[in-house]
């Protein structure tokens, strides 16, 4: 342990955040205002998620921090180190081992269990913000359940592009009441939000916390004739061969060669460990054998 208070924040701040989390769980999808604190990292680096995690962690927890599904990016590494130092919690890079998972813009591929908590980092919590810049107005729209503007936006997508072009931060309606921003996760992840784990959302700069209790109804907005589709790159993972995971497209060289690889590093690694192999991994291992021979 260190000379920090457990999990960095002072107790009064944690109580304030904890009260906001409880109200968030009681009113699923409603953004509870909270007095966000300055954290030792800049806004936009997940200060909301960090404050929610700090208020949620216990010394027994095992923490996984992922950024777009990966454990090894700067953002994920610094947040993981932050909690190892200030809360003395165990860290892991495996979904199944973690009791608290803080995530930036992805939901792990593996189904989460009842004893797990998923904490999202949220940049802009207000789904209507890009349509209506005034907080006074958007608050009124939520109170009156006036979400026509959002459907107009999706309709304009169809009119312009022939399909709903929104591919991430795809708006959802929670328990038939609040329209909610699921944070910038790909819309591929939207159907996973009806899960067994508790989901908490923290927006530090915007000072909002919201939450989804387990088994909460989360419906992606759509139209009868243009139903929601959880899309992904039409390809298999080049490393592990998975066809059901969300893929990152990686440019390999100046000639435009590219590979598709699972964005969830733990999912991909555990599949490879189990012997699955994608097209490029197979080619590479064949080439390696040839050189050896």
């Amino acid at each position: 342990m260190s000379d920090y208070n457990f999990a960095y924040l002072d107790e009064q701040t944690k109580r304030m955040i904890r009260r906001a989390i409880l109200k968030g769980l009681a009113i699923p999808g409603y953004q509870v205002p909270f007095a966000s604190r300055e954290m030792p990292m800049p806004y936009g680096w997940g200060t909301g998620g960090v404050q929610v995690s700090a208020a949620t962690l216990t010394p027994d927890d095992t923490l996984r921090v992922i950024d777009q599904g990966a454990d090894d990016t700067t953002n994920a590494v610094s947040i993981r180190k932050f909690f190892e130092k200030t809360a003395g919690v165990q860290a892991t890079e495996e979904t199944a081992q973690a009791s608290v998972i803080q995530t930036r813009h992805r939901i792990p591929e593996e189904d989460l269990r009842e004893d797990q908590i998923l904490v999202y980092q949220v940049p802009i919590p207000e789904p209507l913000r890009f349509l209506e810049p005034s907080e006074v107005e958007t608050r009124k729209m939520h109170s009156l359940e006036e979400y026509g503007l959002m459907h107009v936006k999706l309709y304009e997508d169809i009119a312009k592009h022939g399909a709903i072009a929104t591919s991430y931060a795809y708006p959802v309606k929670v328990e038939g009441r609040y329209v909610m921003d699921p944070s910038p996760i790909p819309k591929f992840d939207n159907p996973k939000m009806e899960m067994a784990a508790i989901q908490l959302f923290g927006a530090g700069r915007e000072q909002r916390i919201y939450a989804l209790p387990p088994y909460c109804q989360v419906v992606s907005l759509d139209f009868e004739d243009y139903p929601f589709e959880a899309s992904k790159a039409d390809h298999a993972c080049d490393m592990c061969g998975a066809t059901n995971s969300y893929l990152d497209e990686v440019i390999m060289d100046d000639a435009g060669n590219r590979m598709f690889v699972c964005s969830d590093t733990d999912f991909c690694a555990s599949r490879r460990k189990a012997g699955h192999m994608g097209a490029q991994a197979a080619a590479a291992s064949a080439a390696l054998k040839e050189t050896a021979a």
Partner: protein
Amino acid sequence: MNAEALRGGFGDAPVEAAYAFRAAMNAMARPGTVETLKGAQPPAPVSVAAGTLLLTLCDPDTPLHLAGDYDCDAVRAWISFHIGARIVAPENAMFALGTWDALAPLSRFAIGTAEYPDRSATLIVERERLEQGGMTLFGPGIKDSTTMVLPESKAFQMNAMLFPLGLDFFFTSGDQLAALPRTTKVEAA
């Protein structure tokens, strides 16, 4: 101030509050689930779970209402030393503590506003015991349905109809805790 009021707080506040909050959050996220909550030793008639919950969630920012027998000198002194919450009338309370009968009528408590439904009271209801059976519960946090013995069903049905406004409830008994948020639909058996 008597010495009694100085005792019974958290020994290691950051860690004990963290465990207590996790139990309270699990209870609120999964209505009807019974969690164990320990740490505080509040004066009678406050239960261990209710005292721990107050230490975890309340401070000088949260006006508190004490109902019936809970509004006594020993409890007031303990709260003023360990928590510092102002003791107020039901209309102004963010939290309230008491038995079901003493807390009635519920219409006195804040249910939030259309624009800020979170500005509503959380009621901590002390019970003889917490047990399954009795009424059937549906709603967010409950996979299919679950059961719980509640003091009555009508008040919770009325409360659920106010959604997204309404009150949220914790039930405490000894070191046990359960919760019932405004989203839970209650059906009498």
